[in-house]
């Protein structure tokens, strides 16, 4: 009985800890700056985010993001400001609604088309059974087998 109570208490404690850990909490200004700059592409780097780049341009972009966060702008408004200047290119994950979304959609479309093609072939491509041989064909076949057996001795 006592063991069960201990196990139940432990499970409750774990559940409470999970609920506490998973509860939504308001991001701090620094966390927001990190989150936004992680999603922005550094314009003078090769595939680096603004957060990770040591370049002067990235530093200026981080400063601008921090200032906008202090001004109370939302993440979307800050992202829109950079998109207005640099286009969707400035986002490391371009929105799927834009022209660049083709990069994501095209492979899916090709795979889908291939799947349709392959499944149609599998379903419809099985060769039809040959028609039953005629009596004459059977007789000719038997005669040939008998001839070959005789030849083999």
């Amino acid at each position, binding site marked *: 009985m006592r063991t069960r109570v201990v196990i139940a208490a432990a499970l409750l404690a774990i559940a409470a800890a999970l609920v506490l850990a998973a509860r939504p909490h308001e991001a701090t200004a620094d966390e927001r700056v990190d989150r936004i700059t992680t999603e922005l592409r550094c314009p*003078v780097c090769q595939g680096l985010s603004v957060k990770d780049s040591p370049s002067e341009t990235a530093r*200026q972009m981080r400063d601008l993001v921090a200032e906008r966060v202090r001004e109370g702008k939302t993440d979307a408004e800050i992202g829109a400001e950079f998109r207005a*200047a640099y286009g969707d290119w400035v986002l490391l994950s371009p929105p799927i609604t834009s022209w660049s979304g083709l990069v994501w959609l095209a492979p899916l479309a090709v795979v889908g088309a291939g799947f*349709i093609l392959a499944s149609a*072939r599998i379903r419809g491509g099985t060769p039809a059974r040959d028609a039953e041989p005629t009596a004459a064909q059977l007789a000719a076949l038997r005669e040939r087998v008998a001839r070959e057996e005789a030849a083999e001795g």
Partner: protein
Amino acid sequence: MILSRALRIAIVVAMLGLVVTLALAFRRDPHDIRTGTVGKPAPAFTAERLDGTGTLSLSDYTGKVVVVNFFASWCLPCAQENPALVHVYERYRGSDVVMLGVVYQESRDSARSYVKRMGMSWPAIADDDGRVALSYGVFGPPETFFIGPDGVIAGRHIGPIDETKLIAGIEALRREATR
């Protein structure tokens, strides 16, 4: 084969569409990176003049053709394009065409000495925090923007620009303004 004729045609059309899209994308000049600013109102700015004589606002030049050039003394292509900028500035001096320089990621002192050495007599502004460059979507100097009398960015050139392209860009905007 049970694939309907319509489905087969649809697949072929989709494939062709993909090929055409990719072909068009690969045909584009990689230097012609279209930022969001072209075709839109030029971002407003007010900044300190490099010569220390106060501030300068883009709105001061409303109704004129404005050529905004981002430059730096450490940028070799900037020095390469400078004679073309000087010639064009002299050609349109006192007209409805204005040339503005924006210092890109450089100290004011070294930019001042560069401007003096290169004979750049048009107004230049300091952009210490890079806000002007960021608002125009600049990737690196030299970059030149053509702003029409209506305040809209009509064109953008990445890399060193020559006299022919400068004059062509300016004249296109002047023609449009007189229509």
